[in-house]
């Protein structure tokens, strides 16, 4: 009887996973020209990808940048450019790629939430937070947020499957798409190092770690390639970063600290610290699962609220809180 109930519940959760992803895709498609309206950021990020699709080069002449563009690392341009080459170099295709990526990432999050909470009902409720305006906004922006959602969702899923090196590699890869995940990566690796021994993990699952090591090497190579490119065009990199720094400084910092994004971050941090202190003995066995994910979530949200840009709301308002609730639920239900 329990077995059949569990099968039905698992089947229904499978349906929910698909429905959640399709719901995001349908909503995003239906509002793609007004949420957001066409804006200049699209051109800034689409044109280098379009150029990569046309010429295989990361130096878009069309942006008067024959030596490259250095607002962010080149990960997004390579990914989007490759997909545009495979399909069609069109901004409509780029929008669709973003929407599908976000829909896939939602389904991955929904599966990972089940692993974390071990309750279909609770996982489904927490997943509802992902069917939200900031996620739709991220799906429709022709920017790197869609790819970052996909990478972070896969990171969380890999972590729940104890593929820690692969999860860390994907977080590192995220930095090659946008520095927004720098804090998350550092916090995740620190928590991972503090909660276990990598070599013990390897001895438990040698086949998995071979694939993970290949992924890690690939990411390291990509990282070195990007660093070499920056070093080669350091003057241009400095120009881009000076402009970015001036722009970020011009954002009213005092407003950033009392925005809902910041308040959520404070609340989450305080309650997490309190929960960890109170329930410390119970967490001991599960700290490898819980602590690195909490660290990555708060790291992601810290950058997002400090950055103070609407594009980051998907991390501050949707992904962060939903994942955090899953983790808090897990902590509070430990026996």
């Amino acid at each position, binding site marked *: 009887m329990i077995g059949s109930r569990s099968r039905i519940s698992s089947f229904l959760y499978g349906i929910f996973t698909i429905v959640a992803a399709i719901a995001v895709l349908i909503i995003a498609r239906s509002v793609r020209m007004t*949420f957001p309206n066409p804006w200049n950021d699209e051109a800034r990020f689409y044109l280098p990808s379009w150029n990569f699709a046309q010429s295989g080069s990361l130096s878009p002449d069309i942006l008067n940048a024959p030596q490259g*563009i250095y607002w962010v690392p080149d990960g997004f341009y390579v990914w989007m450019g490759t997909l545009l080459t495979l399909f069609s170099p069109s901004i409509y295709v780029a929008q669709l790629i973003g929407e599908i990526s976000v829909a896939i990432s939602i389904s991955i999050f929904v599966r990972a939430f089940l692993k974390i909470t071990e309750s279909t009902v609770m996982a489904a409720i927490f997943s509802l937070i992902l069917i939200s305006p900031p996620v739709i906004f991220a799906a429709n922006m022709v920017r790197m947020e869609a790819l970052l959602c996909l990478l972070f969702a896969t990171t969380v899923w890999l972590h729940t499957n104890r593929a820690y090196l692969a999860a860390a590699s994907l977080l590192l890869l995220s930095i090659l798409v946008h520095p927004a995940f720098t804090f998350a990566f550092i916090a995740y690796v620190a928590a991972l190092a503090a909660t276990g021994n990598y070599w013990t993990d390897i001895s438990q699952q040698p086949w998995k770690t071979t694939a993970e090591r290949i992924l890690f090497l690939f990411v390291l190579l990509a990282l070195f390639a990007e660093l070499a490119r920056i070093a080669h065009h350091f003057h241009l990199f400095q120009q881009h970063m000076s402009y970015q720094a001036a722009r970020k400084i011009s954002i009213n910092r005092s407003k950033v600290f009392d925005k809902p994004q910041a308040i959520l971050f404070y609340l989450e941090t305080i309650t997490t610290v309190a929960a960890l202190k109170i329930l410390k003995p119970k967490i001991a066995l599960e700290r490898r699962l819980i602590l690195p994910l909490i660290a990555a979530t708060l790291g992601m949200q810290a950058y997002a609220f400090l950055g103070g840009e609407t594009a980051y709301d998907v991390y501050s308002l949707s992904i962060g809180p939903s994942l955090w609730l899953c983790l808090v*639920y897990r902590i509070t239900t430990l026996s």
Partner: protein
Amino acid sequence: MGDNRTLHGKLLATVALLYCIVQWVGARSMEGNKIFSPREQEARRNIEISTEQLLHSIKEICASGLERRIVFDDNDVILPYALSMTGESAFNRCKLVRETNVTLLPEASNEDCRTIRVREYTYVMREIPVSRILRFQTHNEPWKEISRWISPDNDLGFALFRRPACFDKEATSGVPK
């Protein structure tokens, strides 16, 4: 213990459901973009028509077969749509360039009669009169408008400009420079 778990679960589920509602209410409008805006169809038409109009204007300039440089500034939103509607090869010897705030063209490029400047008007500039956006000048010399299009709802538009001196040169030499 079991009761505690159920209680925690119910509490967190309530928080999550309330948060969902708050999120939909609070974030239904982001950066002035409203989700489920009744303007969706109109916005699609606007971008399509403005793209067609811009392509028409550029192709008219490029039809002469002379070398031209069509320069967009960092406020441009239409160029990606224009390139999606037609390939770069459709522009003959015209070269399209979109400046960013770091990769500006040198001042000297404005002296070059091959340069045509494009200025765009978008919904984010609603508070500013169109006439203040759709203009271009260098060293207090206003450039001459070649063509202009603005959507009926004033949400999207563009104008193309050229240095007045370049028209004079063409008139005296009889050949477009």
